[in-house]
């Protein structure tokens, strides 16, 4: 009995040994194939996620390189890049100088697409309303409390506005949408700037909070007399009523993909870190913003291979060019040519061991 067991054990050991021996023979070949980078990691903003996932899917079909993008929020994306666990991060608000200084290495931004924030409301039988910056700030500060306020009536002559209380709806979760909206209000209203300011989460003077675009849209749809702000994509996809907003040139602009792209057709700084709200462009929609991908300028960190860096740069290049075609069908505004030019320079400035990196464009 004991002998039998010993015999079987020995045989098993021998067989496994042979298997391992075979395996080790194959290893060099495997190593060669694993050198080809098959997956890139990204994490960050949720806003561009539908666009990214469509674009990355097309990229996978084209190149065989899978891009794993975790839509965990801009804050998470920045944190993951800072801890160097991803190849690139996604963020709706560009990193401030103070935050960049905290990073171990220079971080670059490239814009990938654009979004906008629309004003939506729930008023029965009222056609598209016009809003001036003053009116928007007044409503969200809680200074204008009724729909038939003379300030609203003045810009909407001919529209009969009800004697109804305004219920303000805002985002309860920290969000890039809130960041763009409050950045805009801080630019156009000194009152807003002093009392509330700009950020992803605010100390709201009035109103109810809803989680995500659906949360805000839900409050607006359900509450008579409600007003809120949602992403342009969300408003378009759900056929929500949206207000025209007066831009800096005095034109009332209906929010549209075209108007958003036009808003970015301005002088951009070399690092593309710019807020384009309250755009000087005459036909531009004033509550617009970029969303960015962020990555390190010096790519030789954490034992990254040159091949991996090349794959990353190829992907970034693709996102700026071919990938842009997927933006508009999903209601994102594609980048204007000026922005792509700046991004090209930035991608080309990436180094590996201080040397510029050559990659297939």
């Amino acid at each position, binding site marked *: 009995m004991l002998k039998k067991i010993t015999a079987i054990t020995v045989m098993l050991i021998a067989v496994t040994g042979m298997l391992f021996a075979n395996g080790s023979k194959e290893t060099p070949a495997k190593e060669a194939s694993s050198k080809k980078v098959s997956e890139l990691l990204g994490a960050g903003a949720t806003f561009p996620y539908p666009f990214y996932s469509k674009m990355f899917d097309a990229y996978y079909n084209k190149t065989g390189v899978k891009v794993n993008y975790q839509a*965990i*929020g*801009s*804050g*998470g994306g*920045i*944190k993951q890049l800072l801890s160097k666990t991803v190849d690139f991060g996604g963020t709706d608000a560009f990193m401030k100088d103070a*935050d960049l200084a905290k990073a171990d290495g220079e971080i670059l931004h490239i814009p990938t697409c654009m979004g906008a924030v629309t004003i939506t409301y729930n008023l029965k039988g009222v056609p598209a309303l016009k809003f001036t910056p003053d009116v928007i700030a007044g409503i969200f500060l809680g200074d204008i409390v009724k729909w038939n306020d003379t300030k609203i009536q003045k810009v909407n002559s001919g529209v009969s506005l009800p004697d109804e*209380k305004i*219920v303000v709806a805002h985002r*309860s*979760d*920290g*969000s*890039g949408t809130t960041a763009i909206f*409050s950045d805009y209000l801080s630019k156009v209203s000194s009152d807003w700037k002093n009392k*509330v*300011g*700009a*950020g*992803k*989460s*605010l*100390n*709201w003077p009035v*109103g*109810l*909070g*809803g*989680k995500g675009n659906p*949360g805000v849209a*839900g*409050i607006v749809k*359900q*509450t*008579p007399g409600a007003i809120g702000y949602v992403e342009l994509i969300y408003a378009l996809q759900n056929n929500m009523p949206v207000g025209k907003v007066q831009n800096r040139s005095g034109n009332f602009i209906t929010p549209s993909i075209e108007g958003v792209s036009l808003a970015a057709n301005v002088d951009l700084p070399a690092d593309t870190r710019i807020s384009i709200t309250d755009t000087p462009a005459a036909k531009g929609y004033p509550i617009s913003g970029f969303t960015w991908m962020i990555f390190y300028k010096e790519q030789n960190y954490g034992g990254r291979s040159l091949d991996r860096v090349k794959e990353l740069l190829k992907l970034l290049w693709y996102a700026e060019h071919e990938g842009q075609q997927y933006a508009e069908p999903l209601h994102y505004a594609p980048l204007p040519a000026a922005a792509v030019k700046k991004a090209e320079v930035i991608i080309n400035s990436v180094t590996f061991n201080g040397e510029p990196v050559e990659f297939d464009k």
Partner: protein
Amino acid sequence: MNKDIFMEKGFKVILKSAGIVILMIPALLLVTLVVQSAPAVKAYGAGFIFRQTWDPVREIYGALPFLAGTLVTSFLALLIAFPFSFAVALILSEYMKEGVIATILKSAVELLAGIPSVIYGFWGLLVLVPLIRKLELAAGIPPYGVSILSASLILAIMIIPYASTMAREVMSMISGDIKEAAYSLGGTHWEVLRKVVIPTSYSGIFAGVLLALGRALGETMAVTMVIGNTNKLFTNIFEPGNTMASVIANEFTEAVSDLYLSSLIELGLLLFIVTAIINFIGRLIIKRFEIKGAGK
């Protein structure tokens, strides 16, 4: 080496280490919370608990609106849920021990515990909130619909099974001898319930209440969907508010600055402490009931 002794000792070691692991989880949780919230504790001190402002732009953080929101919604929910869960427990343990209706009622209550909280949230948002809005319109209160009251009502439904199941179990465990003794002394069903069944099961009823309260304190999703998420101190229960769990869930992902994140974690620590204190007081009360019961 005797195999039996080995098994005996080995089993004991496994049990002990399992116990220690369980003990370490809350301890490590607490350590993590304390360490991570240290920057906020240093920056704001005790003022954090009593300040009413929550302003991420200016980095001024105060927990009072959320602390109040958590406590008020939970206790209000308990107040609403208790009569129902108590009644259900009594019915199932004393009046309808068997039968189709009893089985259905029992499964229905248990089902309430199994429904995911996001479903409660949806139901609240789509059914309860419009209903409350209509009431508010009729009463001349601003028709927000979402409010502290809405959150409490949703929570009340969610915690009914926790409170009632525990009470029912304890009530049906009361030995028949005691009850028969009471009946033999000429007690009516009502008198037996009031003087024997209920006093004997105080500890169980209270344990259920404690369990339900714990559930209500930590509930996030359903609450955040119907509470209005206003980071201000409410003055009445028809106003929107926010709870600690809800604000953490809402703002955690996009909290970039260190102090902001640390303040949110301090909220978590506060929630942990509040839950621990309530549990501790609860245990004391249960113990008192038990001693009283035993003394009699």
